[in-house]
């Protein structure tokens, strides 16, 4: 994970939204992060504290919501979640099919922020 770059991108986006919404201070930023991303929250927070100095985002807390990995079965069309690091072989729990596409698990999004 290129944490510094991710951090700078987050800062830019939240400052942009803040300027359009008459924000005085950004308190908390909530991210949505797919489980497949190797996201190091402590580093992102550390970098963020540094790059946000003297901006209205200084001191903001970054929190994550993890998105579990999910697949869509190409045989029966139904969706299922899997703990990828624990399983060696994935099968559709509905029909036993073995052909599927990744539905969730790769996302990297800013969900919302708390401001005043």
């Amino acid at each position: 994970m290129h944490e510094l770059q991710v951090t700078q991108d987050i800062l830019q986006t939240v400052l942009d939204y803040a300027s359009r919404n008459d924000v005085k201070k950004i308190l908390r930023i909530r991210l949505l992060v797919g489980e497949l991303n190797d996201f190091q929250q402590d580093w992102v927070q550390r970098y963020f504290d540094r790059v946000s100095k003297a901006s209205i985002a200084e001191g903001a807390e970054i929190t994550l919501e993890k998105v579990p990995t999910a697949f869509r079965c190409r045989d029966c069309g139904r969706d299922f979640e899997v703990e990828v690091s624990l399983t060696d072989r994935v099968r559709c729990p509905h029909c036993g099919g073995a052909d599927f596409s990744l539905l969730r698990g790769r996302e990297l999004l800013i969900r919302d922020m708390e401001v005043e």
Partner: protein
Amino acid sequence: MGVRLIEIKAGILADNRKLAEGIRSRLKRSGTFLLNIMSSPGSGKTSLILRTIEALGSSCRIAVIEADMDSTVDADKIAAAGIPAVQLRTRGFCHVEAAMVEEALEALSPGDLDLVIIENVGNLVCPAESDTGAHANVVILSVPEGDDKPLKYPLIFTVCDVVVLNKIDYLEHEQFDTGAFRRRIGRLNPRASVCELSCRSGAGLGGWLQWLEARLAGL
């Protein structure tokens, strides 16, 4: 005014994805296939590129974008094979991004090329997170790295179209379970092809070239 919640729902690094989409469609129109090769350091990216040039170089106009961090060693090897090579200035980046590819393409005149190969930075984490604009992604894993890598670095195995298992000449010395390796890829990405080969001996290269030629024909 009290505390408010502002919805954002914006992708992080979304600009890169937009740029990558642009590169992909532009190159498709000009009939140039962009191939992105990713692996750990030393798994055999340069070796596979050289083998590919050797086999297809006379029938296919190829160029290479090299992303070595600090040296031009790999770019020099490609140039010695008579193929245009552009050295990216990755500036200490841990991966190649679309903006760098765009810059490199300007130096190449892609209209006259059939295939442009990116040798990404040696790393199994960051390159997986950045769309380069490629039409297909290759992950190389070499036998000495072990069959457990899809468990440890799942993301990269979900963004690839083909996995090359290189250095199969080491199979007799290493505890590498190719069946387990294929299953671990299959559960993340059931449509990915797997090619087992050795860039050293040349064994198995036919399967790789077949995969590549089919993709080139399908652009």
